[in-house]
């Protein structure tokens, strides 16, 4: 899937990030076009999750800029970035455990004011996620991990984002749910949502993504078409653990 007008929806330019004396990103560049699924791969402590935090304004980079739809959003407060149209499926889901499933869903639309459209989206989520419909009045914390992941995705969709950032959406899920979540990501992408996801499980992520980046010690060491990355022997060695 290529860009329609050439300008990426999200662009990170020359990002350097540090936590105190420890530098996390070194001149990070990446972009996501509207309609794409792009995945960011890398091992532990490679700086993947920090990339998400930079995009969402939770961590401010030392240098460089984040452009969303051509507009610089670097350093804006998180709520404002969310309002501009970036939705988040956080690492470890971060469901509001003491709030009901319904309340969690509606929290996703917190920044929206269009009540009628919110109600429509809410109904749509219940059809899309019948499992959640059964548990509407249960507390979020009582759901299983897989159900929580579904809820986290549905919650992000409730914000009608133009870009959804997903941080390790398959982490800690049973194999059955891993497949379901990946299928779901493809499905919502087909509905026109642009997705940027961080994943440790490179093999799975590349199966559904259009393009991918490989992050190593804070530097992008490889990028390209998902299929090409899947077939790259170096990737297979280092990240896929397949030495057939």
């Amino acid at each position, binding site marked *: 899937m290529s860009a329609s007008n050439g300008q990426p929806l999200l662009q990170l330019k020359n990002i350097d990030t540090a936590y105190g004396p420890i530098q996390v990103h070194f001149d990070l560049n990446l972009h996501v076009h509207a309609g794409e699924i792009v995945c960011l791969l890398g091992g532990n402590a490679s700086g993947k999750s920090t990339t998400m935090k930079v995009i969402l304004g939770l961590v401010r980079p030392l240098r460089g800029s984040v452009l969303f739809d051509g507009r610089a959003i670097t350093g804006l407060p998180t709520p404002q970035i969310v309002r501009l149209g970036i939705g988040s499926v956080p690492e470890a889901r*971060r469901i*509001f*455990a003491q*709030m009901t499933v319904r309340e969690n869903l509606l*929290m996703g639309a917190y920044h929206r004011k269009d009540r009628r459209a919110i109600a429509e989206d809410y109904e749509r989520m219940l059809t899309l996620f019948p499992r959640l419909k059964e548990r509407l009045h249960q507390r979020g914390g009582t759901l299983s991990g897989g159900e929580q992941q579904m809820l986290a995705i549905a*919650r992000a969709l409730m914000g009608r984002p133009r870009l959804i950032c997903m941080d390790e959406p398959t982490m800690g899920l049973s194999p059955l749910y891993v497949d379901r979540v990946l299928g779901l990501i493809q499905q919502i992408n087909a509905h026109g949502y642009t997705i940027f996801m961080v994943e440790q499980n490179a093999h799975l992520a590349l199966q559904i993504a259009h393009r991918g980046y490989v992050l190593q010690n804070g530097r992008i060491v490889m990028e390209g078409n998902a299929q090409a990355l899947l077939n790259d022997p170096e990737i297979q060695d280092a990240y896929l653990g397949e030495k057939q």
Partner: protein
Amino acid sequence: MESFLRTFSDQTINGLVIGNIYAFIAVGLALIFGVGNLINFAHGSVFMVGAYVGWVCMTWWNLPLAVAFVVVTLVCALVGVAIERFALYPLRGAPPIAPLLATIGVSFMIDQAVQLLFSRNPHAFPNPLIEHRFQVGGVTVGAIDLLIAGVGVAAALTLYSFLRFTRWGWALRATAQDREAALQMGVNVNAVNRMTFAIAAALGGIAGLLVGMYFNTVYPTMSFQATFKGFAAVVLGGLGNVPGAVLGGLLLGLIESYGVAIFGATYRNLFAFIILIAVLVWRPNGLFSLKPRVTQEPLTGTFIAKGRPVPTPKWLIATLIGVAFVVPILAPNPYLLQILTNAWLLGMVALSVTLVTGTAGQTSLGQAGFMAIGAYASALLVLRLGWPFELSMIAAAFISAILGTLLVFPAFRLRAAYIAIATLAIGEIVNQVILNWEGLTQGAMGIAGLPPPSLLGWQMIRPHEIYYFSLALLCLAALVQWRLVRSPLGRTWRSLREDEVAAQAFGVNLNRYKTLAFGVAAWLAGLSGAVTGHMYTYISHETFTNTTSILALTMVILGGMGNLLGAIVGAVVLTALPEVFRGLADYRYLVYGLTLLLVIRFRPQGLLGTD
């Protein structure tokens, strides 16, 4: 039997009414703890502001009660927002102990401001309600009881609906449960924080108004009691648990009411403190929680800021000591000497705080309790058993070390903010026991006629004599402590401060080293208390209060935690400052509170740096 039943049901009504007010206070504390993870020591001050605003509305302006309620609600909400905005918001990102200390500073300032505006004396609060008491099935109920119950139920329903059905209520709950996730939903968590303070402060203010009407009086010291009753209720219910806070408040009210009926009115305040400690120690998650343990705080919660100590060459310290010793010769002004003597004696307490809090990392707000133990021990040994002062002073220090450590021992498993509350409560318990153990301590009368300090027949009566004595003690204490913190023992203490779990993993027996730290600290504070008591010649349960404890901690923060010279400099500055600028003496606590706020914000490592 019937009269017993009558008393029992009357006490139950009493307890529920008072408990209702405690619930108001506790709900505010629980909301603030839930959303901001902060223990708000200024909450009682807002409560008092509510009482005074209500009093002004009704006595100065003759406003109807309903209008007074509205005014109190609005003013207190504004005060709450101001506290959040000016004292706490600038500290976001600082270690959790920093905002806690800031609220202590704020409470000092508000309390003193109220005293300055309305005097220290209590004012009579008119009761605008009809003085009619109803008989309902053998139980007497007054109009004020019904009003309090009604307001309580109305507030609970309003708050419940707000949290449950409104957008902002959801934002508040979401922020309390997961701040970062709430941010990612587009919630402006800073605004939520401020709103929470507004709600909590409004509830606290209403409670103040109700208490004023119930007891027909308002007075400045109602603030601290309210904070503590609130803490006790909130801890009973589980920190951050709003329905739990309501139940905790009602329960505390009932316990107090029955307790007073059984033991007598002077025991009233003891129950809250004992409950506070007992629940913190045995069920830190509250009575209504299934999980018995509190979620652990970040391991290094004590230090405000890491920093290197400002280098102090030996010649400088020698010069300072030399100057201190020639002051009585160069400036034999009894007033000056008296102030500096106070500074030396408080300096010893500050040293004890810097040891336990700065070096060993256990925030202590109970140091005045140890002083009181020392003072009473020495006084009783001298007056009852005829011991000489030099012996009684040493014995008092050991008694303080032993009793103090035993008192704090159950709280050893607590950390950071919890140990701060527990030690503050322990200091308060000591005073309450002194007040109530009349056979030993003469209760509220206090002990008068303590002989002045003496040494081998040398009676220290003139100002310069006690000056030299206390200065010598301070230097000796500082020297010993300096050796201690430079020894392997000091290194072990610092390892507790940095990371208890890691220290334990390296085989450090936490309880043993905390015992040693609190033991030494209580020894030193007890010694200071003994000398202070004999210097004053009169002591009572109000001589060594929590204010002294907080002042000692403020000195340490000002000088730099763990920094011995810093503790002494802090003691001198804070003791002398209000006296040097004579006009400031009336504003003493404003100065202390402001100092605390400014240091935490602009120089968190203290004047001389942490060590």
